[in-house]
């Protein structure tokens, strides 16, 4: 198969060829397809270009090493993104000594807003991103995994090393916090 043909293959087909035929040079196709998206995700959590670049290299190395364990139960991109979030959160847990229970204790949500009574259709994207910078990085990662990348809940749990029930409840709380902060800070938007 030539490179042109390989370039039209689906991600999962490329993974299968790499694993079954040991054509490791095809991995660059996956790198080319996803390195920018992975870099953007890393930067959004790590907030440092050099760290994000290092993270991209480490994440693709880790992904390559784990390729044989990719079962195809989800898309390759979902799997890659769950490795990406896991890497970034583990990095921050070590480097920044992230401690979610302590942070959550010190940042209790004053009020859980009943969303049926709120008009959430006029949310402004740039304002929402500012709110995302105010919440804990683990909550931000959870919301991005669930609502931006639409990862399945079992992968979200694995990424943060928490159970599926804990993932669901933390996503719920993160969302409640975002709604509360948005209303508090941008009240005039309602």
């Amino acid at each position: 198969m030539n490179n042109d043909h390989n370039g039209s293959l689906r991600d999962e087909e490329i993974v299968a060829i790499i694993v079954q035929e040991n054509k490791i040079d095809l991995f660059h196709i996956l790198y080319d397809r996803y390195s920018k998206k992975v870099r953007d995700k890393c930067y959004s959590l790590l907030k440092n270009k050099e760290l994000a670049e290092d993270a991209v290299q480490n994440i693709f190395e880790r992904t390559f090493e784990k390729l044989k364990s990719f079962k195809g139960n989800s898309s390759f991109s979902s799997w890659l993104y769950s490795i990406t979030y896991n890497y970034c959160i583990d990095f921050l847990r070590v480097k920044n000594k992230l401690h979610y229970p302590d942070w959550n204790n010190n940042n209790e949500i004053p009020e859980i807003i009943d969303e049926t009574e709120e008009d959430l259709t006029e949310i402004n994207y740039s304002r929402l991103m500012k709110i995302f910078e105010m919440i804990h990085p683990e909550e931000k990662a959870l919301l991005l995994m669930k609502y931006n990348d639409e990862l399945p809940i079992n992968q979200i749990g694995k990424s943060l090393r928490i159970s599926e029930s804990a993932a669901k409840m933390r996503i719920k709380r993160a969302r409640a916090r975002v709604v509360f902060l948005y209303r508090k800070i941008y009240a005039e938007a309602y």
Partner: protein
Amino acid sequence: MKSLIKNLFLRRTLKPPAAVIKGFSDSFHDSINIEWSKTGKVYEALFYEQEIEKIARFDKKGILLEIRTNIAPASLAEPSRSAAFANGEIMNVIEINRENKVFYEVIVRENPVKRILLLLNDQAEILARKVL
């Protein structure tokens, strides 16, 4: 990122059968922000009640199968607290009420990047242990 706002705020939730809605309403009077999903034959509501996250599971007849309640790590009572703490720092606790029995799903951390999932009964016996 374009779909983020839509996915985050557009309320897409399953509509369960009337019997399940009734079963839920009978058990949870002060619930808000209810999100329904279905796995296999089980209907699941994720919601707030008195500012606490809860998950309730029902069969298709509206019979309540299980309630999961998020509780603060510091609120885990003895002797379950000591049993869990022997495995690491307590990071997350979910109380499970199933068939009139109480269990605790506890996540502890051994170090910043190693977390362990424990399942305890109300006698503080560890029934299951899994590295996450």
